[in-house]
């Protein structure tokens, strides 16, 4: 499988990465090189094989459903590029 330039633009938008028009052809080449590399997986018949969900066969740890931390809004918002009164500030999203 390979991707065309429209697909490259669509993936970039889905990934929320701005792409300049002059970069599209180059990116297309790189993406297609990787897709060509993984193409060899099609040699393999994987019918009936269980997809891996956990590499180590252990049971997921469970704990009581209780609050274990919190009350640290200062720390949580403290790393934000723009924050105000313990809120993250973003460009207007609702008209």
């Amino acid at each position, binding site marked *: 499988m390979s991707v065309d330039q429209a697909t490259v633009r669509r993936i970039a938008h889905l990934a929320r*990465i*701005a792409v300049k028009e002059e970069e599209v052809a180059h990116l297309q080449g790189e993406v297609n090189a990787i*897709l060509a*590399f993984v193409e060899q*997986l099609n040699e393999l018949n994987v019918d009936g094989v269980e*997809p891996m969900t956990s590499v*180590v066969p252990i049971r997921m740890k469970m704990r009581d459903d209780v609050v274990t931390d919190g009350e640290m809004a200062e720390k949580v918002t403290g*790393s934000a*590029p723009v924050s105000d009164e313990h809120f993250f500030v973003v460009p*207007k999203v609702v008209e």
Partner: protein
Amino acid sequence: MSDLTRLSLADARDGLAAKRFSAAELTQAHIAAVEAARGLNAFVAETPDIARAQAKESDARIAKGEARPLEGLPLGIKDLYATKGVRTQACSHILDGFKPAYESTVTANLWRDGAVMLGKLNMDEFAMGSSNETSYEGAVASPFLPPNMTADQARGRLADKAKKGLLSPGGSSGGSASAVAAHLCLAATASDTGGSIRQPAAFTGTVGVKPTYGRCSRWGMVAFASSLDQAGPIARSVRDCAIMLRSMAGPDAKDTTCVDFPVPDYEKAIGQSIKGKTIGVPKEYRLDGMSQEIVALWEQGVAWLKDAGAKIVEISLPHTKYALPAYYIVAPAEASSNLARYDGVRYGLRVPGRDIVAMYENTRRAGFGAEVRRRIMIGTYVLSAGYYDAYYVKAQKIRTLIKGDFEKVYAAGVDAILTPATPSPAFALGSQTSDDPVEMYLNDVFTVTVNMAGLPGLALPGGVSAEGLPLGLQLIGRPFEEETLFAVGAALEKAAPKIALPQAWWA
């Protein structure tokens, strides 16, 4: 006192215990070495004040007879570990200025055991790379001199951000490997998603251990591919790695994939007889066109193990060749999901845009380097509607097959597997400029299977190339049997010629 930096971690520990020198002296010697080696660009942040304060506490504890396992031992920390109040950026522009309000579990374990932090180490951006050239902070030079280059010529290239022509220390833990090989720290933390501990160790004549998935907590490590990432040490001997891993590993309620098994005293495995151990040699790792010196190194490793009393058997891991392509679906898919959090809202860089989507897109365009953007795009594609089954599910099925290969040979009685660590010795920075990203990916051909199957792996120096550069061997173990790797690794280390780590031409 600069010869204190020539000590192994174990000898430094014993010297402190015997009061032959103080933690303050040991730390000061390393701080001076780090300052003199700024040209290598191994450290991206130095924390001498923290180091001196920790050393002072260590000296007090030693005086009181209350020394902890890593008391007073100066370490370097890969920039991927969250360190409270200290720069943590995974060497990405997008995490500009990020100083976490919390400490990763692995580094917290090290400080609990008395270790001293010298600073943060350079790495490929978000651990994506095999040469340390994708770092936003610039390339790291290996302390090994390129063949046919004099110390003066090499020194002249240190000022260049790309350090073209000097040797790559490998990646992604290039800063860790370079700093340990250059004797800037006694050991370093590193991390391994596809080979990022073992390949740099092989390139720099050091020892690196990627433990079994789940052995170390991933909490507070900047995530790349969560089902593959694992913390581990790089140090100058198998014993030093064993000491480091004992402190780094352990249960953690904050990481549900971290196992609750007790941590053995790995150091006890050093020097244990390997008589009667069965070592597998997988025929699929004998690649077409593999260089003669790698073949010879591997055969030499087999001979050493035979001499030490191990039984050598040829084994087959038939799905080996599919590990790397399957990895380049699984790892980017998980990366695209993990790196979605960098959106200019909660931390790091923000680049404005006309609306919020433009702000996200501009921030991520400016904040991520080319390799990271490429992998996010691939990951987004293979997870997108209509392609998920064809790529991602298929790759996860292949992972089951790869793991099954190992399970079969282990069930047949194999204790550990011996392979080369890398297909070549270190290459020059700036030499892998092909438009095809797959070329760089091939560095991980021998290491990536281990991550795909969640197994422990250890890389150690086995010899030198025709040009005198280090070559590494790799041991692969059974899940949670790191002790076997340390025992067999120590036997190999004892037999192998000692690789002289370079003198300080950079200072």
